[in-house]
């Protein structure tokens, strides 16, 4: 069932506490229908709510396990770490936030790259992880993606990216913004080499990600209910005082307006990617 087929529980929201109670819900409680799951139960369902079809976020390694053939994934560029060019300090130093994110997630940064095969089709994967500083793109994410493009071109295999990101990493200032043209240029080089980019857009993909490589796939796929907007709903509401449509920035709205090729349910994502890899031609 798609996310739009949810049961309407808005009447209950009126009785709920006015502060964002939803944000404090347990991560395994479905925001769509309030069903609650054990973690292994949810993982067994590819983190899709069996009751209402809500797609929960998926961490990068789990995503790779869902998509790649067993034991086919070999991670590369594991040593890259963010520097702190601006010696950025907001409420806490950037280096402290980085260290904390690495400890909490076990990841070096917000993207994992490597080689894999999907139903026997060789490819490169570049998968983002929202749990590392909101999946924000700084120099490391930009560099990893650029290297993934170059590796895909060198190997003559397609590149599959899965994005989940709040946008550019503010703590890296203007250099974070420069990751937009950097990844865009990398995609252009891949294209000139005859390469293929398939971009999967997961919830949420906003800001700088949507304004760079995530929008440049030869094929754009999105997960149901994924927010994909350049400006987030809160920013738009505050800046323009416009009433936002219920499906503002969602994959469903983007499909209607012609910005993506398809919405793919998570259980079908693997086979859909395999089909596309086949259509674009096996290079193996």
């Amino acid at each position, binding site marked *: 069932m798609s996310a739009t087929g949810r049961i309407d529980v808005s009447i209950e929201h009126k009785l709920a506490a006015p502060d964002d109670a939803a944000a404090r819900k347990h991560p395994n409680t479905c925001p769509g229908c309030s069903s609650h799951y054990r973690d292994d139960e949810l993982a067994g369902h590819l983190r899709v709510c069996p009751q209402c079809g809500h797609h929960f976020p998926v961490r990068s390694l789990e995503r790779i396990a869902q998509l790649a053939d067993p034991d086919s994934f070999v991670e590369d560029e594991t040593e890259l770490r963010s520097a702190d060019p601006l010696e950025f300090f907001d409420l806490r130093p950037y280096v402290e936030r980085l260290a904390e994110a690495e400890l909490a997630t076990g990841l070096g940064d917000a993207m994992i790259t490597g080689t894999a095969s999907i139903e026997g089709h060789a490819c490169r994967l570049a998968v983002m992880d929202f749990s590392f500083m909101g999946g924000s793109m700084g120099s490391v994410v930009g560099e990893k993606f650029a290297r993934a493009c170059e590796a895909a071109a060198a190997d003559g295999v397609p590149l599959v990216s899965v994005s989940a990101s709040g946008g550019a990493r503010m703590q890296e*200032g203007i*250099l974070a913004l420069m990751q937009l043209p950097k990844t865009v240029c990398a995609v252009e080089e891949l294209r000139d080499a005859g390469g293929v980019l398939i971009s999967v857009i997961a919830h949420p993909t906003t800001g700088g990600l949507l304004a760079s490589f995530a929008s440049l796939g030869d094929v754009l796929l999105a997960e149901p209910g994924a927010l994909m907007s*350049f400006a987030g709903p809160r920013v738009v509401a505050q800046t323009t005082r416009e009433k936002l449509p219920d499906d503002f920035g969602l994959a469903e709205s983007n499909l209607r307006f012609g910005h993506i090729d398809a919405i793919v349910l998570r259980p079908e994502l693997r086979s859909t990617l395999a089909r596309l890899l086949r259509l674009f031609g096996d290079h193996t």
Partner: protein
Amino acid sequence: MSTEAELGLRDRLAKLSGVKLLRGTKLSAELERLQRQLERLRTDTSDEEIWRRVELARHQDRPYTLDYVERVLDDFFELHGDRGRLDDHAIVAGLGTLEGRTVALLGHQKGRDIKERTTRNFGMAYPEGYRKAMRVMELADRHGFPLVTLVDTPGAYPGVAAEQHGQGGAIARSQAAMARLGTPIVSVVIGEGGSGGAVALAVADRVLMQENAIYSVISPEGCAAILWRDASQAKKAASAFKPDAAHCLELGVIDGIVPEPEGGAHTDHAAAAALLREAVVSHLAELASIAPDELKRARRAKFRAMGVYA
């Protein structure tokens, strides 16, 4: 010049000027020019100074794109519309001559009075604006016209219709279009270089900033609202992410700084335009003899190298 030699020279320059430079960032500007500029600007980057530049970049009397167009280009003919939906007035496009040669021009346009500000949407473009820009980029490429872009926007417009019309994708494709051009591109940030809406017009062979322009990943207010949860901390945010020209040059993000008249560009539009013209002409002259494929290769390599990591 090899990367190693360049880094060595940057280190020496850093010692000379007393400005902290970063290993791992690359600069394609000629090093002599860099040295002159660093020496001139090294004392100029205190927190107060950064905030003063933010204010100057947004000054209501600061010259906008069309103020420069009328002083820098001859025989300007404006091109309208994205050939699909409408004409976005937040981005100006056209053809004109510079030193007797036809060039294509693109620039964000802010408004001077309330009526014009509304028409120009405060320089915040819709996707249609970027599609108009792409159309003109391709036109320039077809005819071998050098492209000059003037960047001055708080950001791309964050609105419902803008999202429905594909704001993110338009910004991505505008950058991709610039990465494909075989014609020389010079971009100058003349005021606010606000985030994706700015970089959409700034994937250039030479990216320059005026002395009092800013170029940033997010507005100081936006950054403060998110990281400090208080938009009034904008000054603090600006000094943390350093959007001023000197820091952008130091980080290898821009290739040069265009001087302004004493007191800022708003004090003397004609003088500011003359200085801008001089910079654009000299950079275009340097790029004129480079073959299209080499331009494209070097431009992509320049952006490919941006970033600092360990």
